[in-house]
């Protein structure tokens, strides 16, 4: 999995590519928690190039969300492929994460 952290219109964006699984999710968790420690008001995760996610990946984002909620930060997801979205929906995570169509929609809402 590839993790790129950048800025988009003044917002932190984490762009992911590849497979998020038990092997790769510890590195993702570490990067996310370092970013969240800076207490960004908004953190956008772009899933455009993610081909797979398992329960360890989902757990990583749930943990990140719980940290951000302690200071009213917003964790937003953008450009989620259909197969990944189906897993989020089954897990009812589409009800707790802010899911946006595009990166622009995320940073503008």
């Amino acid at each position, binding site marked *: 999995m590839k993790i790129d952290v950048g800025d988009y219109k003044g917002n932190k964006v984490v762009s992911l590519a590849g497979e998020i699984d*038990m092997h790769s999710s510890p590195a993702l968790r570490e990067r996310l928690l370092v970013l969240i420690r800076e207490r960004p008001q908004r953190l956008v995760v772009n899933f455009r190039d993610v081909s797979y996610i*398992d*329960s360890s990946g989902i757990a990583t984002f749930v943990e990140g969300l719980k940290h951000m909620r302690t200071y009213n930060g917003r964790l937003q997801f953008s450009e989620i492929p259909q197969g990944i979205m189906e897993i989020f929906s089954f*897990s*009812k995570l589409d009800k707790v994460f802010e899911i946006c169509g595009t990166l622009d929609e995320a940073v503008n809402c």
Partner: protein
Amino acid sequence: MSDTVTVRVRSHPQYLSLIRDVTVRFCSIYGLSEEVTADLRLAVDEACANVIKHAYRGDTSQRIVVKYAATARDLRITIEDTGEKARPELMQGRNLDDIRPGGLGLHFIKRVFDTVVYDQKRKNGNRLLLIKHLRSRDED
């Protein structure tokens, strides 16, 4: 007669992608739909991750054996380890409405397989049998 494929890997998470790839290839031979294949890929991955986490408690030097067998009627995947005995009676996924890290893997396994059962006759380690009934392509 059934067609079988056996994969033996070390209990290291880096091999999970290999197991996922084999699962997808095996499903493609039997013409399973993309949706079912994706669900099976996730379920087998979660079952093997559970072996690493729970049966081997993170020990990456052990062995996982995944056996794929298919007939015209069903797809059978057996996952074997030599780790700590599973206690199926204590296993249950979290309530899906209770949003917290963990507890989803079992849901992913049970939503696609028709049978999820541990072989109670096995003396050492675990043998998890997963069965997916096959339908014709028209029914997928």
